């Protein structure tokens, strides 16, 4: 049904759903995915997104809806960059969390390694932390597991090794006669199994790291007890 024949209520419904989905999306959402989810045409999605973007701009919102990287996303308005910079510089502590450092170290020593293997070793879903490590340019996708599932295998980047003053991962200080825990052995031996991702029928492990910002920065300690 072309836009001009769509009842107003349906348009409002599409707009609200787009706002809700884009608010929780981490990456830009392609218009055809939105169209499929909302059961409307891609043209309708694009028209509604354009209307939303114009509306935010006209209302002088501090955020914007933009089309980037093949999809739509919310982001801070460019003219608010000075405030966001302040938030980035002053609003966060600059301590790498122990959890993030351990994840980084495991990738460095055990590369190439899949996200599922890292998660199995860490005991929590490593997705959030690994994505941020990747955004920072410290780890990157190296290759694909040739086995079933073709899981993405990660390793450290050249820049990261340079920062550490190393020529290659082989120059990392040896771990020595260290016996890893059984869950580690199992996770690594299970081999480069298919990355299970997050199957919908399995309980989702809440990544504890996710509760401290981007997972890298030390957040507040656990809530102080009350009463």
């Amino acid at each position, binding site marked *: 049904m072309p836009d001009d024949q769509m009842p107003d209520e349906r348009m409002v419904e599409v707009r609200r759903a787009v706002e809700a989905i884009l608010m929780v999306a981490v990456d830009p959402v392609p218009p055809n995915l939105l169209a499929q989810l909302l059961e409307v045409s891609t043209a309708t999605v694009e028209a509604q997104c354009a209307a939303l973007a114009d509306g935010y701009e006209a209302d002088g919102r501090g955020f914007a809806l933009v089309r980037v990287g093949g999809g739509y996303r919310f982001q801070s308005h460019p003219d608010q960059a000075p405030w966001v910079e302040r938030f*980035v510089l002053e609003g966060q502590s600059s301590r790498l969390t122990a959890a993030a*450092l351990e994840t980084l170290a495991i990738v*460095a*020593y055990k590369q190439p390694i899949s996200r599922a293997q890292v998660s199995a070793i860490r005991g929590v879903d490593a997705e959030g932390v690994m994505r941020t490590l990747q955004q920072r340019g410290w780890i990157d996708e190296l290759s694909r597991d040739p086995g079933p599932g073709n899981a993405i295998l990660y390793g450290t980047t050249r820049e990261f090794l340079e920062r*550490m003053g190393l020529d290659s991962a082989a120059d990392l200080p*040896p771990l020595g006669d*260290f016996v890893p825990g059984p869950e*580690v052995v199992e996770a690594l031996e299970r081999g480069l199994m298919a990355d299970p991702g997050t199957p919908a029928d399995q309980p989702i492990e809440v990544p504890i790291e996710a509760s401290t910002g981007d997972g890298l920065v030390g957040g507040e300690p656990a809530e102080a007890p009350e009463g």
Partner: protein
Amino acid sequence: MSVTVTTAVYEGPFDLLLNLILKEEVELYEVSLSSIVDAYLVELERLEALDLEVATEFLLIAAILVELKTRRLLPGRDGVDADDEFGLWEERDLLLARLLECKTFKDAAVVLRRLAAEASRSWPRRAGLEERFLGMAPDLLDGVTADDLRAACLRGLAPRPSVHVETEHIAPIRASVADAVAELVDEIPRSGTITFRHLTRGLVDRIEIVVRFLAVLELYKQGVVEVDQLGAFGDIHVGWRPGAEPGDVDLIDAYEG
């Protein structure tokens, strides 16, 4: 009166008792204790493994109930030791307090479930910084050395500390009757006749002693030992029955009572 309790899953003795008293709308003294025990055994089967801690807690409560019930049934209480009477009331009040506490948190949990259900209808924004701000975030690798990485890797790969270790002083003793039977079959024939006190020397936890006692009862049931107690509170003498062979003993896999 039949008590049907096979549909609910009980989390321990308080659950069961609360349920019997409140939900089933029964007068506890009209419920035969055997139906409480039966209901509990059903739950134990569901658990597949006998949790000694749960079981002993339940037995303790059952014992209090039995005593309360007998007091109730027996006519006249003349000659009852005042201290005993007082102790019983104390036990009862303690049990009542625990039941009330249990019920309080059960109701609080219902509210938490509702809050969580309401909150779960919204998803938080977690997209984080846009690319252009990533570069200006503080350099988190500042001061991190290759040796730090090595230490972090060792921490990450180390066996995760078992929670048992941290609270060993309160962790339940996982004593098994089967193990105790095997030990007794080794020990009693060598000693001839031995006192129960001697058989439990060095045991600190009450549970371990209880398990030893159950093992003795098991051997008695199988007819390989003789048990004798000369007077009330006197030493219990356990002796290997002449002619019985240690090989005759069924080394039980799991204690079935």
